[in-house]
């Protein structure tokens, strides 16, 4: 029977079991199989329309899958109404109740769940203290800044002590400085609540890389890749992941024995899994591309130069392809059309075989 958790059952964690969501026949989430372990922070990362928010809404109960099942802990919640799922949720625009004071916003979930009246003030104070908003309990949302409102929204979600916390682009409405501070706060909160599973939807790779234990990369309604931030960044499995996470250079190459051919240039890279003679994609991060002669040298012409404070981003046309290189701030910047040499180390390149490439 769905809904009721047996005594002693694991209450935290999320499992998508072949979940498909469609609106009027248009599939917006396609056969998602994904498990968020108890206490884990899983970031759903992808561009607009990739299906990441739909996946979160399927956990919350706001969309009904046409196929598959959703589990929270060991409970099958696929057909449970949202108010019986026991989740905390924070959304991009805070969604605080404007006619309630901060303390009443935070107490809302406790009252809805009919918590003992004597417990409510303590739980509200605890949640507000956890988010550093205890001094603002008597204020209305309109009297708070964006960052403060988001803290209240988080306190409201935490007050009910959820097993699962759903964060839907929670920092998108904040400016860069506040966002950075809130990221630190969220990381601290997770350390204080190690048993809560967090599903964190974002299109911002920095947020995902900073906060998540694992990242699920989504595109066009499908899960493209899933792994630890380090794995996805250093060893992406698909062109989409390589491009979306870190904006890597993707160069079409032909596989040789222990090397690849990019245009007429032979490049030394690890090719153990690639078939000899097959076409593949070579992935190199811009910050791992150096300017000047070195191993795996590429000659090309400067197409664009961007100053980015501590670095320069060079766009160099090499054999008909544009290669990006992030180099330490140059004293003398090359002019457009100048011939330059780029290079990268063998161990900094990843070969994506055509089989796993989504490209």
């Amino acid at each position, binding site marked *: 029977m769905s809904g009721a958790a047996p005594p002693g059952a694991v209450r935290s964690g999320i499992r998508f079991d072949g979940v498909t969501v469609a609106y009027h026949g248009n599939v917006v989430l396609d056969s998602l199989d994904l498990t968020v372990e108890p206490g884990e922070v899983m970031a759903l990362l992808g561009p607009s329309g990739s299906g990441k928010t739909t996946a979160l809404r399927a956990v919350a109960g706001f969309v009904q899958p046409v196929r598959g099942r959703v589990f929270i802990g060991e409970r099958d919640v696929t057909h449970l109404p949202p108010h019986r799922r026991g989740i905390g949720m924070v959304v991009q625009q805070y*969604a605080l109740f404007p006619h309630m004071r901060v303390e009443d916003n935070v107490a809302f979930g406790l009252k809805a769940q009919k918590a003992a009246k004597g417990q409510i003030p303590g739980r509200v104070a605890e949640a507000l203290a956890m988010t550093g908003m205890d001094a603002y309990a008597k204020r209305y949302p309109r009297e708070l800044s964006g960052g403060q409102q988001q803290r209240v*929204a988080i306190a409201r979600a935490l007050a009910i002590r959820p097993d699962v916390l759903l964060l839907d682009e929670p920092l998108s409405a904040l400016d860069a400085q506040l966002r950075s501070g809130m990221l630190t706060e969220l990381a601290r909160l997770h350390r204080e609540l190690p048993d809560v599973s967090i599903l964190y939807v974002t299109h911002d790779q920095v947020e995902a890389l900073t906060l998540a234990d694992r990242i699920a990369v989504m595109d066009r309604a499908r899960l493209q890749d899933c792994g630890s931030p380090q794995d996805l960044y250093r060893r992406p499995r698909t062109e989409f992941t390589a491009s979306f996470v870190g904006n890597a250079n993707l160069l079409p190459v032909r596989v040789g024995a222990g090397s690849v051919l990019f245009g007429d240039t032979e490049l030394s890279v690890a090719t153990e899994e690639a078939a000899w003679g097959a076409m593949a994609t070579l992935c190199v991060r811009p910050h791992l591309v150096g300017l000047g002669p070195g191993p795996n040298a590429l000659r090309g012409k400067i197409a664009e130069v961007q100053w980015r404070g501590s670095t320069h981003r060079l766009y160099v046309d090499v054999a008909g392809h544009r290669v990006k290189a992030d180099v330490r701030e140059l004293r003398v910047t090359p002019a457009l059309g100048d011939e330059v040499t780029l290079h990268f180390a063998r161990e900094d390149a990843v070969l994506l075989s055509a089989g796993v490439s989504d490209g």
Partner: protein
Amino acid sequence: MASAGRGKPAGDPAPGAVPTLPRGLEGQGGTPNALRNDCPQRGKGKQVPTWVWALPPVAVLAAVFLYPLALVVRQSVSPDSGGTSLQPYADVFASSAFREALTTTVWLSAGATVGCLVLGFVLALVIAFVPFPGGKAVARFIDVFLSFPSFLITLALLFIYGTVGMANGLWTDATGAHSGPFQFLTTPWGVLLAEITYFTPFVMRPLLAAFSQLDTAQLEVASSLGARPARIVRRVILPEALPALAAGGSLVLVMCLNEFGIVLFTGAKGVTTLPMLVYSKAILESDYPAACVVAVVNIAISVGLYGLYRVVSRRVGA
């Protein structure tokens, strides 16, 4: 480029140069800046006082509204015996017909307003938050409904629930009885039903506008926190809809107080409201001072309610 014209005559600019003026002459004519400065200077000396612009609307307002209103007030203090006195007020206030009309008007208006608020809130909730096929068409029909004359609704109710209406016809056909059971349309309850039917969309319109502004994420978050739909309506939607409810309710209350067509068309015997009393005093009894007294009372109640609405709406932030 700009310096090319300095020191040269204004009428002899260098080819392709932006026309500029010699130093010291900027702002005195010729440049766009100078043209801007021309406007207030041209008005100096013969500027029309602002109060003059208020005259035409005030004149129109006075002709079509204030003057007739003044005539009504004057007539209310002009008894048939001549002179000016408050005797017509004393006579009208002492009459049981006036007191009954006032009571009927107030309870009918209050009842219809409460009915409209309840029904309008529920219907607007369904249209705004319960997705169903044709929901948008229904919302648009509400706008069209607002343009209907009040007697049309009463006429439709007469066709259905009138003494010889469809409902009674079906009953008499089925049972062979001499008359049907639906005889309420000519009672105060019939007037109440007609007023609720007609005025409910006037509550729904501002409510639908308010609901369209409501952040649906609030409802979703409330639900995720464990709130059932009834609690969400009570604790989240209703408080945010209060200004719209106050606006719609006040409008309906004032309109019900002044409603004439519905009461007339139902033909409800013994249902005399203040507007009906004005009609009977003025047209049937030719007692113009009394009719004007009742009209002044009606206006005073309406304006008083409007004032109350303004105060309340300011407090709730409408």
